[in-house]
């Protein structure tokens, strides 16, 4: 495993782990760090031993946002040429499930990174927010788009306009996160969930993510056609044969991801 400056990675029992590792800066995201997260995710996405990717942050916050020092002197042309957000586009193309474990502050770019996850488990007391407006700007890595697709424009506008902190309970109520757990058990509960998904047939898991994501952008008609093709495609897999045979033979299936 290559060494990273701002993250830690590991892989065990089908669960790949990426840990944001700038706890003293509350895991604020600089460009190199986002690059490392992407690099690790793409590597795990191609690694047959990794079935699920867990993203978490070391210390008392998941991530308090982007590194403001890094961008305070930026100008539009530099930003266009830098094209830093293409890294974020590539995170969105990861095919394997990404499960986020968040605690403390999930602010700005940290919130946007959390919104790149497919499932989110939050420690009680976690607070989410898009505070960019207080700096005279707005979210730039998908905040206005992903949040709106999740919760609708009514709440998205209110939250992004005011920059107010959203308690975990409210985030749960609006469908931003899957569940709230005791802070002591955040990683344990996340690993339980990740292990459960990792035990499922990987190709089905993969095409379910692919299809559900299409539901966000496609018309219902196109989405239905897309779903159908993926459904048919799974009948080309060994896991489909195994799953259905095991059901008929009343035994536990063993999936290989083929």
């Amino acid at each position, binding site marked *: 495993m290559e060494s990273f400056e701002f993250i830690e990675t590991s892989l065990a029992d089908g669960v790949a782990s990426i840990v944001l590792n700038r706890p003293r800066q509350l895991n604020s995201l600089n460009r190199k760090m986002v690059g490392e997260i992407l690099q690790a995710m793409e590597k795990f996405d191609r690694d047959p031993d990794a079935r699920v990717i867990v993203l978490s942050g070391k210390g008392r916050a998941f991530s308090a946002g982007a590194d403001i020092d890094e961008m305070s002197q930026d100008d539009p042309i530099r930003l266009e040429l830098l094209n830093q957000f293409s890294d974020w586009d590539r995170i969105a193309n990861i095919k394997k499930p990404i499960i986020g474990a968040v605690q403390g502050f999930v602010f700005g770019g940290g919130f946007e990174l959390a919104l790149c996850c497919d499932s989110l488990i939050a420690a009680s*007391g976690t607070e989410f927010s898009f505070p960019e407006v207080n700096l005279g700007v707005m979210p730039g890595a998908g905040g206005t788009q992903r949040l709106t697709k999740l919760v609708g424009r009514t709440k998205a506008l209110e939250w992004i306009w005011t920059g107010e902190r959203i308690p975990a309970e409210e985030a749960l109520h609006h469908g931003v996160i899957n569940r709230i757990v*005791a802070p*002591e058990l955040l990683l344990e509960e996340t690993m339980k969930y990740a292990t459960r998904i990792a035990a499922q047939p990987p190709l089905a898991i993969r095409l379910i993510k692919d299809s559900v994501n299409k539901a966000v952008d496609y018309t219902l008609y196109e989405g239905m056609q897309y779903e159908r093709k993926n459904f048919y495609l799974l009948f080309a897999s060994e896991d489909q044969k195994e799953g259905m045979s095991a059901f008929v033979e009343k035994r536990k299936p063993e999936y290989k991801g083929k």
Partner: protein
Amino acid sequence: MYDTIQYEVKSNVAWLRLNRPDKLNSFTDQMLKEVTKAVKAAAADEQVRCVVLTGEGRAFCAGQDLESVDEQMDHGEVLRGQYGPMLKAIRQLEKPIVAAVNGVAAGAGFSLALACDFRLLSEHASFLNAFIHVGLIPDSGNLYALTKLVGQAKAAELSILGEKIPADEAVQLGLANRLIAADDWETEVTAFAGRLAMMPTKAIGLIKRSLNAAYELSYDEFLEQEAQGQRAAGLTADHREGVTAFIEKRKPVFIGK
């Protein structure tokens, strides 16, 4: 560091004394901020395993200082900006907090006592839901706690009639845990706090979490919350110590972790 309160940590107990005795320890903006700060300090301090809130002089706390109330005051904003943060800090404190009610606790002073886990009452103490006498409603979480402690009907009576509740009646109503004779006051409060400070602090915090959840969650959600709480408690050193001490037939020594 503090002007309107005294804050001292002694033998794992944080003593937070409201210290405006000539004003019956009534709340000012500064005192609200200082109580909030002290409660947060106690929460963060690993040495602290119990918090005692009490008042200097003859009163516990007479509520909002009425001298600072004028026509310009936005009562809602004062609650959101000043009282709310203090009450939330107390509610989020995962350590036992005891109101040692040495004298009158009126208005928001009564609410402050209600926000604590335990209420020890001196024979000189009394409660008074005084808000109605100045044309206001009980605030600072008052009715949230009061209805749970004494029920809707009694809470209505105490709030609408606004009659003084002497210490012995407060105990009968279930508003207090202990009535303590004036002569024994310091000794008994110190002993009670000292006893709490030697208990499994983490488990007490988790019990408080479950108590709060009991009013907020459905039964199924509560059972899940309880399972997580017990898992967290099961991971503590104090749990292992408790079990080991039981098997070895000795008294457990808890470290609060």
